[in-house]
């Protein structure tokens, strides 16, 4: 069915991990970015595919500006964050004439582009490709799963915030994964607690424990909690490398711990 070429673009990508949620605004893009940076610091070659067509956040978070996307024999050349080419990106954000343009597309058009993003980006050799998704369980999700399945899909990391409205949506996403046969690598509870920088009192602004409980109820591995960290949000605004800039922060250790979690480690065989 596929030419050598289309199978070829993902052939040298060792692992593909979806970052899903179901709920909007829980930190999928943030976590995708931070996990990618953490993996890169561990010496891995990482790619990020941003299939959130209506709200592409990855280019902004990594501060790559608006470079042109070039074509090569194998398809589109991904955008690299620096000359070391250890972090490759593809997002619709790079293809818009004006970065503030709204992408107001219906399903079929989105599906077509996602198909291209999966098959026609010349990723080259990567240890892991992280796929950042929009909220919901619609066209983008079905398309990306269908298209990735032709090549490789290790599983999904689900992100939630602790409160009830979030865990409800993420629970549905878990059911979606089970239905379409996407293995669940684990659940991350993001924005789990806020420590006041002034008095160190911890406030559970978005509640606490909801993610862990969701993991229990659905029989999924729990990968850990990431606290609300103003340093993290402000470093994302500036597009800085949080993992490099704030290694002492609570968010940093939380994220690194997630990567060291048993199941993720086994599935991804990431860190030696």
């Amino acid at each position, binding site marked *: 069915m596929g030419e050598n070429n289309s199978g070829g673009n993902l052939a040298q990508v060792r692992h593909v991990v979806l970052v899903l949620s179901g709920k*909007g605004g829980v930190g999928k893009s943030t976590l995708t970015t931070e996990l990618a940076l953490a993996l890169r610091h561990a010496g891995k070659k990482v790619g990020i595919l941003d299939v959130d067509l209506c*709200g592409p956040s990855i280019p*902004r978070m990594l501060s790559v500006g608006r470079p042109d996307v070039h074509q090569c024999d194998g398809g589109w050349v991904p955008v690299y964050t620096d000359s070391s080419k250890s972090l490759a990106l593809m997002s619709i954000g790079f293809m818009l004439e004006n970065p503030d343009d709204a992408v107001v597309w219906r399903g079929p058009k989105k599906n077509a582009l996602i198909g291209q993003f999966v098959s026609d980006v010349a990723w080259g050799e990567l240890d892991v490709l992280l796929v950042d998704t*929009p909220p*919901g369980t*619609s066209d983008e999700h079905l398309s990306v799963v269908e298209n990735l399945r032709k090549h490789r899909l290790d599983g999904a990391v689900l992100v939630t915030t602790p409160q009830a409205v979030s865990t409800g949506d993420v629970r549905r996403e878990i059911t979606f994964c089970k239905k379409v046969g996407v293995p669940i690598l684990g659940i991350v509870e993001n924005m789990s607690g806020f420590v006041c920088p002034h008095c160190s009192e911890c*406030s559970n602004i978005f509640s606490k424990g909801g993610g862990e409980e969701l993991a229990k109820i659905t029989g999924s591995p729990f990968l850990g909690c990431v606290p609300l960290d*103003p340093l993290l949000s402000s470093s994302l605004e500036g597009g800085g490398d949080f993992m490099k800039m704030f290694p002492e922060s609570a968010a940093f250790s939380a994220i690194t711990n997630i990567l060291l979690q048993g199941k993720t480690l086994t599935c991804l065989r990431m860190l030696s």
Partner: protein
Amino acid sequence: AATQCGPSSGPSSLQDRQREIMARGLPKQKPIAGVGQVVVVASGKGGVGKSTTAVNLALGLMAIDPSKRVGLLDADIHGPSVPKLMNLKGNPELTETNRMIPLTNYGLPCMSMGFLVDEEAPIVWRGLMVMSALEKLLRQVEWGSLDYLVVDMPPGTGDVQLSISQNVPVAGAVIVSTPQDIALLDARRGAEMFKKVHVPVLGLVQNMSVFQCPNCQHQTHIFGSGGARQLADTLGVHFLGDIPLHLNIREMSDRGQPVVISSPDSPEAEAYRKLAAAVLLRIQEVTV
């Protein structure tokens, strides 16, 4: 009647013709029976508090003018939050004409996809099926007679937003954002989308504006500060107000007791009532 595009026709008349031809394929706007004005609460970005704002805005509208009848429509098909926020459960009953009767709590009639499906079931639907469900939620609900219908939109700028704007005359859109750039970027796209489909933007709300530590009262701008106000200026839209980040809002929301009802004397409730007043003023300004 096809006319030749002679050398005398400029590019602008060609564009006009193209627009005219494309418009013929588009659905005609039809008001929802019995509903006065439709206000959509949108954002572009997920998780900024659209649903929480929509619920408290609807209740706020009722609080500041008890003579007005308000309804709440949850148009987020994939992640309907209204049932949880309003503590409503169960399948809607049907009238003799097979129209769905909204579920009501705190005096606010609501309709949501969440009432029509199992709480844990994902709605794994492509655009077309979502459209047909939306059509039912728009046209086959027995609202009775409403002065205002507040519509909680899903995140993004896709099928649902397009369909609602194309099928129903919308009095205006309230755009919710948090102060951080990444949310404002999407809020900007949301505003642009509404411009494209000729829906007036009533204004921008800055949600989760600031957090005050309950212990020491120290204020932290967890998600940045002031961005939404600046964006409102840049886009030339009104700034409708700040809503602070307060544990009470989330705690009450999780319990299905919106703050406007459960803690009416709190500053958060006051912030939502102020928002309702600002929205009312803007609706009057744009509906001339």
